[in-house]
C-alpha cells in the first residue's frame, strides 16, 4: 500500500537534482519545483531498521521496531516489513504492492504468527493510520503530481536551509477523499529538493498534522530524513505524536523478487 522508500522521505518526496541547483530559484514555478522533488533520486533496493515511537497526549510512549525491505517496480513499489518489537507482536508482517496510480487500490497481505494465516487485506482507504502512527499511508507514499495544484506562498528558512513554501490543493473531491487532506503546505529545500516540513489540513475533525524532518543525512549519495516527526494537533494542542528513526539504512542491496512474496512473509524476519 505504501512505499518504504517513500517512508524514508515521509510523504513529501524531494528530488536531488544537480541541474536544478544551477537554476535560479525565482525562475521556477511551484509545479516545476514539485516535479523536481518528485524526480529526485530517492534510492532503491533498500533495507532499513525503523524505530517508531508513539507519544500520546499524556506523554506516554510506546516503541515499535520494524525491519523493512523495499524494491521499485517502475513507478510502483513493493515492500515487506516485519515487527521485531514489542515481543508480543514479533513476526507480524506486512507485504505491500504500492501502485503509483491513485485509481488502483494497493495490494496488502498480512501475517499474524499466532494465527498462522496470511490474509489479504482489501481496502480503498489510504488516509488511515500507518501502523497506528500519526503518519497515514498517503504520507508514506509518493503523491501523484497531477492530482494537486501548487502555488508558491513564500521563501523561508528551515534550520538554516533555504526553502520554498508551497501550497498544494487537491484537484477534486475524489483526491481530497483519498488523501484525507483539504490542503497541504510543503517546505521544499532549495538545495536538494527535499520536503523537510509540511502542514496538512485534515478533512475531518478540524485537525492539523505537522511533519518535520528533524534530521537529514546523505546515505550512499542519497539524501533522506533519518528522523521524522509527525504530530496531530487541534486548536494548538498536540493530540498525538510519532517519531520515526531510521538506522542501518542500506541502498542498492540484492533484493530478489522472492523476498516480496506471501511465502516469505510467513517465514518471518
Amino acid at each position, binding site marked *: 500500500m505504501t512505499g518504504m522508500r517513500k517512508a524514508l522521505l515521509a510523504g513529501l518526496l524531494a528530488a536531488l537534482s544537480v541541474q536544478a541547483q544551477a537554476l535560479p530559484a525565482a525562475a521556477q514555478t511551484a509545479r516545476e519545483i514539485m516535479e523536481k522533488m518528485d524526480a529526485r533520486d530517492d534510492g532503491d533496493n533498500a533495507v532499513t531498521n525503523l524505530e517508531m515511537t*508513539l507519544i500520546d497526549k499524556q506523554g506516554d510512549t510506546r516503541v515499535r521496531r520494524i525491519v523493512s525491505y523495499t524494491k521499485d517496480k517502475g513507478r510502483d513499489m513493493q515492500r515487506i516489513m516485519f515487527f521485531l518489537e514489542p515481543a508480543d507482536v514479533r513476526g507480524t508482517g506486512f507485504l505491500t504492492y504500492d501502485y503509483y496510480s491513485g485509481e488502483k487500490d494497493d495490494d496488502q497481505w*498480512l501475517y499474524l504468527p*499466532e494465527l498462522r494465516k496470511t490474509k489479504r487485506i482489501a481496502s480503498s*482507504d489510504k488516509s*488511515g493510520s500507518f501502523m497506528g502512527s500519526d503518519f497515514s*499511508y498517503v504520507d508514506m507514499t509518493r503523491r501523484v503530481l497531477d492530482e494537486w495544484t501548487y502555488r508558491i506562498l513564500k521563501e523561508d528558512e528551515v534550520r538554516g536551509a533555504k526553502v520554498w513554501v508551497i501550497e498544494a490543493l487537491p484537484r477534486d473531491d475524489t483526491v481530497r477523499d483519498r488523501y484525507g487532506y483539504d490542503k497541504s503546505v510543503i517546505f521544499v529545500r532549495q538545495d536538494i529538493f527535499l520536503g523537510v516540513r509540511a502542514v496538512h489540513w485534515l478533512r475531518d475533525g478540524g485537525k492539523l498534522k505537522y511533519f518535520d524532518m528533524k534530521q537529514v543525512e546523505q546515505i550512499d549519495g542519497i539524501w533522506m530524513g533519518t528522523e521524522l516527526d509527525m504530530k496531530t494537533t487541534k486548536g494548538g494542542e498536540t493530540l498525538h505524536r510519532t517519531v520515526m528513526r531510521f538506522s542501518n539504512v542500506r541502498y542498492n542491496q540484492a533484493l530478489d523478487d522472492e523476498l516480496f512474496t506471501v511465502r516469505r512473509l510467513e517465514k518471518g524476519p
Partner: protein
Amino acid sequence: MADIRDRIERGFEGLTAFLCRRRWWVVAATLAVAAGLASGMARLTIDTSNEGFLHPDDPTLAQYEEFKNQFGREDMILLAIEPADLFTDATLRKIKALHDELRDNVPHLNDIISLANARNTHGEGDRLVVDDLLAAWPETEAEIAALKDRVLANPLYRDRLVSRDARMTTIVLELDAFSGAGAGGVADALAGFDEPAKPVTRAKLTDAENRAAVETVRAIAAKYEAADFRLYMAGTPSVTEALKRAMQEDMRKFMGLALLTIGLCLLAMFRRIVGVVLPFLVVVLSFVSTMGAMGYMGTPIKLPTVILPSFLLAVSVGAAVHVLAIFFQQLRKEDDRAAAAIHAMGHSGLAIVMTSLTTAVGLGSFATAEVAPIADLGAYASLGVLLSLAYTIILLPPLLAIIPTRPHAAAPEGGGVFERLLDAVADFSTRHARAVVATGVVVIVVFVASAAQLRFSHDVLTWLPHDWPVYQATRKVDRDLRGSVVIEVIVDSGRENGLYDRELLVRLDGLARELEAWSEGDLFVGKATSVADILKEIHQALNENQPEFYRIPENEKLIPQEFLLFENSGSDDLQDVVDSSFSKARFTVKVPWRDTLELVPLLTHIQDRFPEVLGPGVAVTVTGITSLFSRTLYAAIHSAAKSYVIAFGAITLMMILLIGRIRLGLAAMLPNLAPIVIVMGMMWWVGIPLNMFTMLTGSIAIGLAVDDTIHFMHNFRRYFAQTGDVRAAVHSTLHTSGRAMLVTSIVLSVGFYIYLFSAMNNVFQFGLLTGSAIALALLALFLMGPALMVLLNPETAKKETGQ
C-alpha cells in the same frame, strides 16, 4: 428596646432629611455608583452547560474532564432517519448526501458516523475487508439486499446505527470537547511547528459554539426532511440547546409580562405614575448592579440565574411599596413631599432594613449549596437584596422629594374595599385566636407529612413542552433505537497492556451482555459496548466471518497481534475505546433519557457489579453526563435540605434577636413556615417534583413570608406600645403596613401567575408555586399574626375582653 427603636427611627428621619436636602447630589452620586457597577455587565459570560451545574473543584467534574480529555465527548447529537424504505438506492444516496453535507458544514464537529462511513471490518473468503460500509456503492438489487443482510447481522450496528426492524437509522455527530478548536489561518498554522512553551489550557465548547453546531444540523436536516424521509434530532446537546433557548425566550417574555402586570397593579393601587416608576427604578438598578457585580467577579450566568430578576423584583418591590404606602398616606396629611418622605422612612426604615437583612441571610444560606448555580444565585440574590435596600434608603427619599406629586383626595376612612377587608381579617383572627392558631398548627403538620413524600427530580427534558420536536424525537429514539444518552465506565487495569489480558476482556464482554439484559421498571440498557467488541469483530473477520468466531480469541497471544492489525487497518476507532498504553478501557452503556432519579439504581448497580466481576486491582470509574446529572441531583437534595435548615435557623435567630423575646420570635416563625410547608405539600398532591427550579420557590417564599412577618411585628409593637391594646394595635398595623403587604402580595402573586401561560413546564410550575407561596404567606400572616399577638399578650387581651 422601645428606646433603641425610637433612636433608630429618629436616625432614619435624620438621614432622610439630610439626603433630601442634598437631593440632586445624592441622586447623581447614586446613579453614578450604579452605572459603575452596571458596567461590569460587559464582562458577563454565559454557561448553561451540564458541567456548569457543579462547582469547578467537584471531583465528579474532574473525572468527567479527564474522561473527555482522553476519549472526547460522549454526549452525541443523534439525527435519526425514518425513511419509507431504508435499503433502497435512493434512500442510501440521500443518507450519504446528508452525511456529507453535515460533515462539511457543521462547525466544531469532531466526528460523524452513519451507514455512509460505518466501520466495516469483515472477512470474505481469505480476504479481510477493512473499509467504510458504503465505500463500494451497491449498484444492483442483489448488492443492496446483501448490504442489508450484512448491516442487520452486525451486532455493532444494531440499536446504534440501525434499528432492529431496519426501519430507522442514525447519523451520530460528536462535537469538539474543547473551545476554539477550529483551524486558524495559514500563518497561524505555519507557526505551529514549535511546541508551545506551556501546555495549552482548554476551555469547554462555549454556548455559542454549541448553538452554532446544533442550529446548523437542524437547518441541514430541515432541507432533507420529507414525508418518506422523516428526521428526528435527539441527544443531550440538542436537548440542552432547545432548553436553553426556550428558557431564555420564555423568561424574557414573561419577565416583560410580569413587569407590565405588576406595573398596572401598582398604578391601580397608587393611581400615580411615580408609584410604578420608582419601585421599578429600584428593581432595575439593583438588578443591573448585581449582574455587573457578577461580571466583575467572573461568575457566569447559568440556567437558574434567569430566576434572579424575578427574585429581585419580588423583594425590591416590597420594600419600595412599603415606603410609598406610608409616604402617600402622610402626603394626604401634610402637603410637603420632603416631610412625608422623612416620615415614611422614620416609620418603615427599620422594618425595611430588618426585612432585607433576614432575606439576605435566608438567601445567603444557599451560597453554600453544592449545585454551583444555586450557590451563585444564593450569593448574588443576597447581594442584590442588600443593594436594593441601599437604593431604597438612599435614592428613594430624594426622588420622592424631587418628583412633583399631588396628594389624592383622602380615601374615605374604613370605606374602601381594602379597609373593610383588613378590618374583617383583624376582627376574625383576634376573636378566634386560639382556633386560628390551632388550625394553623394542624395544617402545618398535615402538609409537612405530604411534603415529606416529595420526590426529587432532575429531568430537563420534561421541562420542555411535550409536543416539541426534540421531546418527541428523544422519546422516539429511546423507543426505536433503545436509548439516546450514555453512561460511561472507565475500567483501569492499572498496568500497560493490561487489556491484552484475555480474562479481563472476557469479563468485560460478559458484563456487557449482562447489562443488556438488565432492566428495572421501564428503564433498560439499550446497548453496552467496549473494546471487547472490536476484538470480537476482528477475530470473526480473520476467521472468514464465521459467526462462531465472534468471540474473544482463545489464544491470548493472538490478542496483541489482532489489535495491531486493527490499528494498521486504517481505523482510528481504537483510540475512542482504549488509552494508548492499553491500560484503560472505556465501557459505554446506552440508556433511554430518563429522570436522573430513575437512573440512580442502574448507576449504583454498575458501581457495585463491575468491581465484583472484574476483581481487585481493576479500578472502576463511572462518569459521563448521566453521572454528572446524578451528582447534580444528589448535590441538589443535599443542598436543599442543608440550605433550608440553615435559612430557618438563621432567620429564627434573627427573629428572636429583633423581637427581643424568645417565645415571640419562635411564634413568629409559624406564619413563616406555613406558606412553604403548604406549597410543598401541594406539590406532592399535584405531582410536581422538587427540582432545581421548584426548590428555589422556597427561597422566594421564605424571603417574602419573613418580610411580611417583620413588617407586621414591627408595626404591631409600635402601635401596641402607643395604645397597650392588642386589637387596636392589630387594626392600626393592618391599616398601615398591612395595606402595603396586601398591595405587594396581590401585585407579586399576579405577576408570578403570569408565568402560568408559559409552555415550559418548569416555568409554569415556578409561577404557580411562587404566586401561591406569596398569597399563602400573606394569608398565613393575616390570620396567624394577630391571633398569635392575642395569645402571647394574654394580660392585655383579657383586659380588653373585660372592657
